[in-house]
């Protein structure tokens, strides 16, 4: 019974990661937009939803006590707008500028979460976030299973919507832009407009994931949204294979299993005073793993990656380009 409960808990967390990975896959896998600040968008979603749904609190602004579903929608809207602004600022420039800017977004969101105490509760975060099926909390198993069901349904909806989108004319334009920008532009597609849309939708999905997680745990703090989160999700996408939604989901579950498993092993074997060190080594190992996958198998498990550079730059070393897949 315990095992089943833990399994449900594990899968819920993994699926929430896979939701973020799906959003990243739309941005990177399908459109080739590099987002290294996704933790910021997840945080925006989590805080927005928390502010909208928590009961009123004299110590800080808001706490509007709205229904959870409104919180989720609000998270998606705010996350989408934030991503759209980021995209509009940078998508006419070289791809690296987007990377740097998203990195900055994550830093600033972290800063706001820590310092704007009136809004975010500062380092202590926000508690008492209403949980769906909170009344079932007395029976943990039922509670975990019902949460898993909620997250699974949301993930499935997003997954199906993305699958549909990537096959729709809209998705085909994105792929065309990714593969050969000049050709797509010559067919009259506005590269920037489509990219901003894709980036915004991806941001909205990440924000939704953040909101889901906030309501699942019931408490959020700035520490949940450190660069390590961005890094984990990237590894999940690369392992699964960028460009494939199926890969995004499976990669997330797989990497989360490795992460949680190795964490459990180190906490069992390593004496408490060395725990922090062991955790650092764990991150280093995953970082090395990411580099090795990029070197050895850039397509991941289910990859469908562009074999061409983005933004119409001169393809250097054309001879080195493989045309596998």
């Amino acid at each position: 019974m315990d095992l089943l409960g833990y399994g449900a808990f594990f899968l819920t967390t993994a699926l929430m990661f896979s939701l973020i990975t799906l959003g990243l896959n739309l941005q990177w896998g399908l459109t080739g937009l590099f987002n290294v600040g996704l933790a910021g968008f997840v945080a925006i979603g989590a805080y927005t939803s928390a502010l909208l749904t928590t009961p009123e609190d004299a110590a800080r602004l808001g706490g509007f006590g709205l229904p959870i579903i409104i919180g989720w929608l609000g998270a998606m809207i705010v996350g989408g707008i934030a991503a759209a602004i980021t995209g509009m600022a940078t998508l006419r420039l070289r791809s690296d500028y987007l990377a740097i800017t998203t990195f900055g977004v994550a830093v600033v969101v972290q800063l706001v979460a820590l310092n704007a105490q009136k809004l975010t509760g500062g380092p202590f975060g926000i508690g008492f976030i209403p949980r769906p099926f909170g009344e079932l909390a007395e029976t943990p198993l039922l509670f975990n299973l019902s949460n898993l069901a909620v997250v699974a349904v949301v993930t499935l909806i997003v997954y199906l919507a993305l699958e549909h989108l990537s096959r729709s004319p809209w998705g085909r334009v994105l792929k065309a832009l990714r593969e050969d920008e000049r050709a797509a532009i010559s067919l009259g597609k506005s590269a920037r407009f489509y990219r901003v849309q894709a980036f915004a939708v991806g941001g909205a999905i990440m924000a939704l994931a953040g909101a889901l997680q906030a309501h699942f745990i019931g408490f959020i703090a700035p520490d949940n949204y450190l660069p390590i989160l961005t890094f984990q999700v990237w590894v999940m996408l690369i392992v699964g294979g960028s460009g494939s939604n199926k890969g995004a989901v499976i990669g997330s579950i797989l990497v989360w299993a490795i992460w949680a498993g190795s964490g459990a092993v180190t906490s069992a074997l390593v004496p408490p005073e060395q725990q922090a060190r062991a955790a650092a080594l764990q991150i280093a190992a995953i970082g090395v793993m990411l580099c090795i996958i990029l070197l050895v198998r850039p397509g991941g498990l289910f990859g469908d990656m562009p074999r061409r550079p983005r933004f119409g730059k001169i393809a250097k070393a054309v001879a080195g380009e493989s045309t596998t897949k």
Partner: protein
Amino acid sequence: MNLQFVVDGLLTGSMIGLGAIGVTLTYSILRFSNFAHGDFMAWGTYATLAVVSAIGAMFGKIAPIAPLSFGWPLIVAVIIGMAFTALLALLLDKVLFSRLRTQGQAIIVVMASFGASMALRSLLEFIFTSRPTYFSRAIQIAMPVGFGIRITPDQIALLLVTAVLVLGVHLLMTRTQAGRSMQAFSQNAALARIVGIDVAMVVRMTWIIGGALACVAGVMIGILVQIRPFMGFDMLLPMFAAAILGGIGSIPGAVLGGLIIGLAEAGAVQLIGAEWRAAVSFVILMAVLFVRPFGIFGVRER
């Protein structure tokens, strides 16, 4: 408003500027933004610290040079640290970046640098733990120099070192064959190859200059603030912002950008509060991207 922020800003700006030179060079010559550059800083600083303690163990306690907080061991250690950081950068290029570069996808290299940055930083945390350390715990007396400004001997020395280094790199880039090759390569890689410029040499020089300067910038942070595994990562956004503000590929631009951001940060600390310091570089970055994305000394998209 207290004018002290000028000194603080110039010092922060020197650290940012020295780091930004490496960022701007990697960006313009190797054509990717290196997210691991901040971690070169941290590695260089810890390497320097290790050498300092090794010298301390060999020769016993050595008195610092008159008004400064450090003695010759630190100067020797910095030079060794610079060489070490340059080697580290070259090694990372050999095992990782150069291989991905030949695949022709710039953004994959950026991602790899992101992964490498995580790994490098966590390794430091593993070896040295995240507890901050210092080169010296001595407290220096700041001397008043008028206009309400106070400055310590260390700060004067470091400002001078920065000026010398920047001048040196500038001369290297404009007066030597190697430097001119690097400039040629950044302006037009294909043409540079055709006229027979040694590409491998250009790449090597880029990493050596970038790595060595990152080490100096890190040690400056170590002397004036503290040494932590995250010290370089926290400098990443200011460095990128400085490189873009100054115009990608321009060394005077990177330094000027660094100084502007340093002064803006110091000013913001006085006016708004220290907790918002990290947002300053983001605001400047966004403003530059909207208004003049090619920066002060840059040219429009090539």
